[in-house]
């Protein structure tokens, strides 16, 4: 059944998108930075994993090493770029442009080193199909769902049950107070971006595993994820994840009633209307 298959494929895309949304949301809600370079880290993770697999590094390492690298890169960005800009009291626009510059640098280094061609992961099992009744999914898609839901659960647990998580939420809710009460927001920001970078590396590897690697492909998912984050309510991890699922499923299901090329346009149209009438999002402030 067409609708069912579209629904399920939408859920898969939505799960991956959800992790991007959660990770971006972590950074935005805490450090208030529109960290578009996040899309660069997402892209880089995939390419690093590809290189490792081509060099026949054992699979678990090929997943873990890129995560470590992305974490390091994210932390570096915060401490060397964003922190400096914050010290000079740069406005949001300036930070955004610096982040855009960083994104451009990352994407183009990747394009120069790996060429702009679409690259395929050298794995056999990733595209084998499994049938669930009338619905067919490949192993990568299944893995995406499992990993994404685990990432969501892990982040929720981390935010609500660990000391660092609570410290992050405290800084996010009142940076000025945090500064005074020795919560050391600047250190927290580094932790936050590091965690976010590690998280976004997961869909960064899984999505290209299914669809192929391209250097400039990170921006659209990031923007859609941002919409999910805002529509879900900034600061709400659940909101970001759920809305990602909703948007992805809606985009797929909209094919039933309209030509494919309009589905992205419709998403943004709905979003704009949303912003006019309910700008604080669906799950606002509910963490």
């Amino acid at each position, binding site marked *: 059944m*067409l609708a069912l*298959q*579209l629904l399920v*494929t939408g859920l898969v*895309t939505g799960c991956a998108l959800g992790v991007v949304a959660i990770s971006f949301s972590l950074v935005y809600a805490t450090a208030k930075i529109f960290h578009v370079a996040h899309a660069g880290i997402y892209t880089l993770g995939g390419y690093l994993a590809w290189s490792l697999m081509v060099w026949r590094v054992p699979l678990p390492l090929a997943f873990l090493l890129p995560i470590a690298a992305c974490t390091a890169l994210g932390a570096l960005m915060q401490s060397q770029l964003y922190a400096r800009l914050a010290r000079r009291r740069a406005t949001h626009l300036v930070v955004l442009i610096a982040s855009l510059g960083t994104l451009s640098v990352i994407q*183009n280094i990747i*394009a120069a080193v790996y*060429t*702009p*061609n*679409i690259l*395929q992961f050298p794995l056999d099992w990733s*595209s084998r*199909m499994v049938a669930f009744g009338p619905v*067919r999914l*490949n192993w990568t898609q299944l893995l995406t769902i499992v990993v994404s839901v685990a990432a969501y659960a892990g982040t929720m647990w981390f935010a609500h049950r660990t000391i660092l998580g609570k410290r992050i939420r405290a800084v996010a809710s009142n940076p000025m107070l945090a500064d005074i009460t020795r919560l050391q927001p600047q250190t927290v920001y580094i932790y936050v971006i590091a965690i976010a970078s590690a998280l976004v590396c997961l869909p960064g590897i899984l999505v290209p595993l299914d*669809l*192929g690697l*391209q250097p*400039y*492909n990170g921006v659209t998912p990031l923007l859609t994820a941002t919409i999910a984050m805002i529509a879900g309510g900034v600061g709400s991890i659940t909101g970001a994840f759920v809305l990602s699922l909703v948007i992805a499923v809606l985009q*797929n299901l909209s*094919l*039933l009633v309209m*030509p*494919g*090329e309009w*589905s992205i346009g419709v998403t943004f149209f709905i979003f704009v209307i949303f912003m006019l009438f309910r700008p604080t999002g669906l799950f606002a402030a509910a963490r």
Partner: protein
Amino acid sequence: MPRVCIGLAALAAGLVITCASAGAETIRFGGILPLTGPGALIGTAEMRGVQFAVDQANAKGGIHGNQIEVQFEDNQAKPDQSILSFNKLTDLQHVAVIFTGYSGPTLAMAPLATRKKVLLVNAGAQADGLAKASPYLINTLPTIGGEIEVISRWVAGQGKKNAGILFENGAAGMAGRDDYLKSFAEAGGTVVAQEATQFGQTDFRPALLKIADAKPDVMLVVITAGLLQMAQEYKQLDLKFTVAGTTFFADPSTIADPSSTGFVHTQLRIDAPPDLAAQFKAKYDTDMEFFAKQYYNAAQIVLATLDKVLAEGKPVTGETMHNALFEIRRFQGLIPLEFKTNTASVPMDINEMRDGKDVLLKEIKLE
């Protein structure tokens, strides 16, 4: 104000340097191709094809003792960048010939080529509008309309009466879609579905599913990137209709992948002799695929024309190159082709992909 002056002075200095370096002994041609952005996949292959041919010619001592140099400009497949680059190459470097690719930018530059009498050589774009865009634009491959007519007739002749169209939302894709609508109907078939995808997109599942829902016998395809992903997803979704297309299908990784078994397509005949392909691979660490071959071929045509112009002692201008090209008319590059009009007629075949190989089904002679 002083800051404005510094900025403008730096700019002026830059332009002066560019002018000064344009007076060397070598013969310079231009190339305006997408070298970054989503078009870079194809643009880079095209650039390499030209460069490879030129390097070979230079290694043999050049043409009549003159070394050839090609200056490539990145237009990111955008028309305004193309026009800036076009003017730069003609005004500052005084090039007589410019290689181009992609329908949109080529159509934008065509009026300029006419006005400035610069030979514009296209070996990759196939939108139908290119045939008449400018007397100074030559196309070394037929427009897509010709191929689509052939494949539509073939497929209808095989008894496939209902078709779905999968097309890329761009100049080439939309022209192809319109051609399919016309040709397939003329061949006696009906189009039951059409779905557009974006250039650079690799998730074709929603489009494939939607087309499958209309239960076609065959899916007519015109996309220029992501073919391998499309083939794999087609296989994964266990779809059964035939898949048909044009020369855009001739992507080595797609042919090699078992998912593409059963795909039929027209194939403009262009082949590189094995040792040439091996040299290319050694140099660029990638196979010499369709666009690289096309542009190698086009470069050879230009070099042969240059040879004639120099042999006759004429200056190398767009006008002399243009006239010489039409005087020669028949060329033997990687394949024999003939310019009866601005668009070369080239023989084509119908191929089917089977288990990693592209197998010839039928040879077609084009008018």
